[in-house]
């Protein structure tokens, strides 16, 4: 059975996917993110809108398709996320 993922963990997974698995100039499609982050289309759409409005992801238009790539703020957020995930792990908690 897979472990329960918090909202924050899902955001971390989405940002990690856009950072690690895509070339900087292209960006990730929604379908790719759904597959990699294992989130439903309805849920990921809301999260992506939120992440773009927060400035953590950038929306890029690639050959008519809407794609997403991680911003500088997103990279900084990911560093903080990984650090404080380790911090919370020490207390046996999930952020």
């Amino acid at each position, binding site marked *: 059975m897979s472990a329960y993922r*918090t909202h*924050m963990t899902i955001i971390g997974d989405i940002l990690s996917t856009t950072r690690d698995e895509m070339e900087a100039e292209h960006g990730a499609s929604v379908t790719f993110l759904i597959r990699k982050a294992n989130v439903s289309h309805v849920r990921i759409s809301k999260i992506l809108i939120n992440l773009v409005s927060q400035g953590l992801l950038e929306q890029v238009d690639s050959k008519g398709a809407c794609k997403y790539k991680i911003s500088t703020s997103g990279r*900084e*957020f990911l*560093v*903080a*996320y990984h*650090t*404080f995930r*380790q*911090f*919370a*792990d*020490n*207390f*046996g*908690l*999930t*952020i």
Partner: protein
Amino acid sequence: MEFLFENILNLIGFVVGLAIGLMSYIGFKNTGSPTLFRLTLAFLSISVGFFIVWSGYMAEDFVIQTGQIERWVQTLGIAVQTVGYFFIAFSHSIKSFFPKSRYFRSVGILPLFLVSIVHIEHIFRSVSFILLVYASIETILSYIEGKKKGTIFVATGLALLAFGEFLGWYSFVFPESILYYVSILIKIAGLISLFIPVSKIPLTRIKFDREI
């Protein structure tokens, strides 16, 4: 001697609580995580609680000089610490253990009236002990799942704080005994154990939120 031990314990408690509380707050400001917010409340409360008791001892030592700390100051400090322990336990989903039926809820309130004549400080100490044991067990369970070294330090720290609190009860029964000093030393060891894994978190790589 008692004042010296109490001062050391309360100062270490204040510093450790403040350090972990501030680190949690930085984490909350950078990630917006509710877990880190609860940890912030928990450790800042613990820090403030220790500070209140320390202030009480200092005021007694330098100003009042009656030979004993003001009872209400000690009770207030312990109550604030209990709030902190509650938030740690709450972070481990203590909610799921609350009785759901109306009958149990009403019975749950009854003992508060029955024991109201007992010194309120002892009630807070008892609640702290239960919360610390709960949080310690939950943290040990997390360690069994994740096998992360830092988790076992925190679990040990919480367990030592609980054991120190437990031994502290004996000092009410046998005042002036060595158990009192042993309980303080165990609590100090617990606080240090809590701080060890947190001190290894590499905060230097983080670009802090400008609003902090």
